[in-house]
Each structure stands twice: as C-alpha cells, then as structure tokens.
C-alpha cells in the first residue's frame, strides 16, 4: 500500500523549484499576481469594448439582419472601429486564454495532460490572434473592381 501524496500547488510548482532573478522572497515569480491583476484590468476594458460592439452591431439599425460584407466594410473604413476591434481581439484573447489556463491548472490532474492542454490552448490562441490582426490590417473592401459598396466610390 502506498501513502496518499499531497500534491504541490500547481500554478506555481515550477516557480517554487527555481530561485533567483525577478522573484520575490519566497522564491516565486510574481506571474500569478500580474495575471490576477491583468484579468481585472482587461475585464474592465472589455466590458466597454464588448458591450459597445454588441450595441452597435445588434441593437442599432437593422441589428443581425443588417450584418453582411458591406456592414463590415463600412465599419472598418473608420479607424476608430479598426482600433476598437483590434483592442477587443487582443484583450479578449489574452483574458480568455488566461482564464482557460487557470481552469486547466485546476482540473487536469496529470502533468502531461496539463502540458498538452496548455500547448493546444496557446497554439490555438496565437493562430486566432495573428489571423484576426492580419484581417483587420490587410482588409480591403474594394479588391473587387466592380464593387458597388459606397466606401469604394
């Protein structure tokens, strides 16, 4: 029979085993503190960004029925909405990725499982952030020369 072992706290087990630069007196990094603070600061910004996004896209005008390529083209013709959407993309992805990281740390029991789930999470997040950023910056509503959109005239 083996005695049941009590596992180390997971979120900082690696940090605990390391000593030195950038760490506090207990030998841990402040990563979890900054992560905790980031969730609150980005959360506040996201309340404004996301609720503004929902209000403009779903409440004003024709709401969901008005959403099409022309609607997106019209919005991104304005640099304000480009910056708005870019900030929202980055903050929401970082906030969501960090939230999922916490959940994986809480529920995945094996080191291997946590490693692979977090690898998958980070890979997916990088792909989505890079793709979304490229779309916002390289979008050209008038690539089609026969376009009848008002922004192309």
């Amino acid at each position: 029979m083996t005695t049941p072992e009590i596992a180390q706290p997971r979120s900082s087990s690696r940090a605990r085993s390391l000593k030195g630069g950038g760490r506090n007196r207990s030998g841990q990094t402040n990563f979890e503190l900054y992560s905790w603070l980031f969730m609150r600061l980005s959360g506040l910004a996201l309340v404004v960004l996301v609720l503004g996004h929902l209000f403009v896209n779903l409440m004003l005008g024709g709401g969901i029925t008005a959403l099409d390529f022309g609607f997106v083209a019209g919005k991104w013709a304005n640099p304000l909405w480009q910056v708005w959407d870019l900030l929202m993309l980055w903050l929401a992805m970082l906030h969501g990725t960090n939230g999922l990281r916490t959940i994986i740390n809480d529920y995945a029991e094996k080191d291997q499982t946590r490693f692979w789930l977090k690898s998958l999470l980070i890979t997916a997040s990088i792909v989505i952030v890079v793709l979304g950023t490229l779309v916002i910056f390289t979008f050209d509503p008038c690539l089609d020369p026969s376009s009848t959109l008002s922004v192309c005239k």
Partner: protein
Amino acid sequence: MPSKPLKLSPGTLYRGHEGMWSWVAHRITGVGIFFFLLVHVLDTALVRVSPEAYNEVIGTYKNPIVGLMEVGLVGAILFHAFNGIRLILVDFWAKGPRNQRKLMIGVGVVWVVLFVPFVIRHLTHVFGG
C-alpha cells in the same frame, strides 16, 4: 465529498451559497464565450476570402435557432461582465466584502435591465417583426 443539506452545514458562508454558484457560473460562461470567440474570429476572417464567402456563412446564421443561441450568448456575456465588476469591487473596494449581498443583487438587477430590452430587440429582428 457527499453534499449535505444547507441546514446541516451552518459553518460555511461560501459552499453551496450564491458566492460559490456565481463562481461556477463565471467559469462556465467564460469558457463558453471563449469558444464562441474562436469561431467568431474565424467567420469574420472570411471577409479576406471574398464578400460572397463571408455573406454565405453569415447568411447561415440568420435563422431562429442561431438567433436564440445569440440570446444565450449575450445573456452569458452580460452575466460574466457584471459578475466580473462585482468581484473587482469585492477585491478592491474597502466596503465591497461587507456589501457582497447587495452587490450580488446589483448584478441580477443590471443583468435584467440590459438583457430584457436586448431580447425584445433581437428577437424582433430574428423573427422579422
């Protein structure tokens, strides 16, 4: 651990009470919103493929089933947003913990006040009023 009826565990302020359930709901809505966001960036990326590709995919969203899912999504976002503000207040406002019950009620009130007009407006669009 077996769950006991509330009256048998008078010592806990958290377990089985609104504090715990709002934490559970915050996690569930957060995960749901995250996976929606992945799909939403992918569908929006179709504007770089062609206007037709984007309109075709967005067109498949314009039906009552997806319309009702959007109601659920917005309900989840509103809860996550204002429950998040509640926990910021509990963490940073000196009187936050003492007023935690009022803050909890506040989340419910703000949620209803914003969600009800949204549901009316959105379902009017979805069902072509």
